[in-house]
């Protein structure tokens, strides 16, 4: 049994009359890097703010470490929070920004002036912006601001680090760099971190586990591999990567895609409607007769990308380029045996 970093039990949160967060149970072990992902409006940021204590009026139970913080105000939760816009204090220097959390402590817990200065220096070195200590946030680049915001959040020695779309405002090149650097820092400091992102690629690359949210509720929590190999529903499968979707009917242990009766797949599902979801590179193509007509084919690197017409619907498929290429106009059958099939509850 691992030590608990954060534990959420039955968390609900309303925005006016609409539920923004619904019945969330989630355990994040100490030292884990968890990514909260989901489409816009899924409630990722709201959930993060609930954990931080910035959303009033939620119900449920929330504990950090061994401490129940459900009723603890945000300022006493000792959580590091990195805002999407960084929210650096524009009128303070970088140094003062980082020192803020230590300076506002009640005087009994406040470190001496030189201790604060020393700590700030260490933090700025840790995030590699020591040379910018006297600059104002306005004079920094996006990546530098990000590091300062992180140093400021770490200054209060938080048990838990929350990051709200921390790479959102960075350009793609810096993004990749700072992402792996952040992951390294997390491991080195032994932090527990929760990151919000709408970019599943980012989550897959940086997180130990992914929690996928939709409409304020958790769809699935697991390692990136678990989510990819064993998605609980079509939504999870589709969110984690490009996919092609077919409506289907299950009859006698076979899922029969509409318009593609020939590509039926054996499944262990009761009779009824179902959804077939498959990655474009998992679709097997065989030339000859079949329901599909190749509209377009282009070799890109090791793959050939096809656009295939199935009775008016165009889907995309990727096939290894070593296979015999199909030319536009050729007919083909589609092998969907590697697909995931999900029953649709009526």
């Amino acid at each position, binding site marked *: 049994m691992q030590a608990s970093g954060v534990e959420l039990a039955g968390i609900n949160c309303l925005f006016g009359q609409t539920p923004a967060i619904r019945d969330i149970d989630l355990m994040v072990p100490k030292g884990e890097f968890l990514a909260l992902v989901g489409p816009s409006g899924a409630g990722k940021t709201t959930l993060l703010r609930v954990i931080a204590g910035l959303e009033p009026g939620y119900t449920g139970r929330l504990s950090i470490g061994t401490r129940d913080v459900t009723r603890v105000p945000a300022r006493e939760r000792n959580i590091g929070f990195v805002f999407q816009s960084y929210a650096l204090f524009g009128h303070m220097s970088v140094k003062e920004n980082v020192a803020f959390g230590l300076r506002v402590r009640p005087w009994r817990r406040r470190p001496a002036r030189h201790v604060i200065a020393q700590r700030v220096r260490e933090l700025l070195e840790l995030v590699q912006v020591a040379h910018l200590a006297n600059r104002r946030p306005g004079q920094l680049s996006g990546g530098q601001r990000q590091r300062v915001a992180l140093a400021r959040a770490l200054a209060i020695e938080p048990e838990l680090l929350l990051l709200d779309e921390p790479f959102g405002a960075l350009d793609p090149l810096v993004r990749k760099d700072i992402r792996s650097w952040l992951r390294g820092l997390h491991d080195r400091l032994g932090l527990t971190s929760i990151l919000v992102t709408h*970019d599943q690629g980012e989550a897959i690359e940086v997180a130990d586990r992914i929690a996928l949210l939709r409409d304020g509720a958790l769809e699935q929590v697991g390692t990136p591999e678990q989510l990819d190999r064993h998605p609980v529903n079509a*939504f999870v499968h589709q969110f984690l990567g490009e996919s092609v979707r077919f409506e289907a009917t299950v009859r006698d242990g076979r899922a029969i895609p509409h318009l593609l009766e020939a590509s039926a797949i054996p499944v262990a599902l009761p009779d009824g409607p179902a959804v077939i979801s498959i990655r474009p590179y998992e679709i097997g193509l065989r030339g000859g007769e079949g329901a599909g007509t190749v509209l377009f084919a282009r070799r890109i690197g090791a793959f050939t990308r096809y656009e295939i017409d199935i009775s008016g619907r165009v889907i995309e498929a990727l096939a290894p380029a070593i296979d015999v290429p199909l030319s536009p106009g050729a007919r083909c059958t589609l092998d969907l045996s590697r697909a995931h099939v999900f029953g649709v509850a009526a």
Partner: protein
Amino acid sequence: MTLASPAPPRPGPLATSFEPVPGRPRHVPPAGPGKGHGPTVIPGYRLSLGITIAWVSLLVLLPLAALAARPWEHGAGWLWHSLTQERALAALRLSFGTAFLAASLCTVAGLLLAWTIARVRPAGWRLLDAIIDLPFALPTAVAGITLATLYGRHGWVGAPLAGAGIKVAYTQAGIMIALVFVGLPFVVRSTLPVLNDLPHELEEAAQTLGARPGQIALRVLLPAILPALVTGFGLAFARGVGEYGSVIFIAGNRPLVSEIAPLLIVIRLQQFDYAGAAAIGLVMLLGAALILVALSLVRALLPAMAGARQPL
């Protein structure tokens, strides 16, 4: 005096590679968290609420309650009589009438000034821009005695005018001059920023479509600044209705002729007719409120009208 400006656009939701899956109703929260909407945990609510309520109640609510209640203390019939006295009617008519005319003049002169500063940029336009604020900087009593002297019988402007047989000071024309003076900056200050912010592409696009300068001004630029112009007119009008200090020195203050409503309030107070003074005060306040409400309605209708007239 600060003018309302349109709210900055809020950033839209981030685009994702995600496509909605049918089967479950998509739910969109009314507003994103932490964008200045909804409840918050920022401390200080009770303290700032307490201070604000105490401040607003003592300094605004209580006095306005007195203003709203006291006209009625001798009954509605008395109130009606007090307001429909010839002298009261004349004063109200004068205040609202001259304020309306003065605001109209301000709109013309203000449009000329704003347009010229923004589009023509004549020699010394920065100085011209700064000069516009003079009436804001000049206390009303100072403006009052200065205008009264300037346009008086022996004044620099008044004397030549008197020679030509035109009397300005101590007439309604004098009141107009004072009101134009105090109202002008409102029109310029509400119009100029809009004119400055109009993208040059707008004019260039019109030019490429073959519009002549006059057509551009009338059909492209004017509709765009019309709401601001209406705002400026309304502010100048409302200000003019209540104006006192800059007017009484030049007005002459003859009952029925050049006695403005605020002055009648002062006179009724001196006669200890509190209810009568409050009655006029209430009418002026309601009148000013009505002007501002009416103009915001006009502004709300304008975009449609302006859009309909736009040839582009």
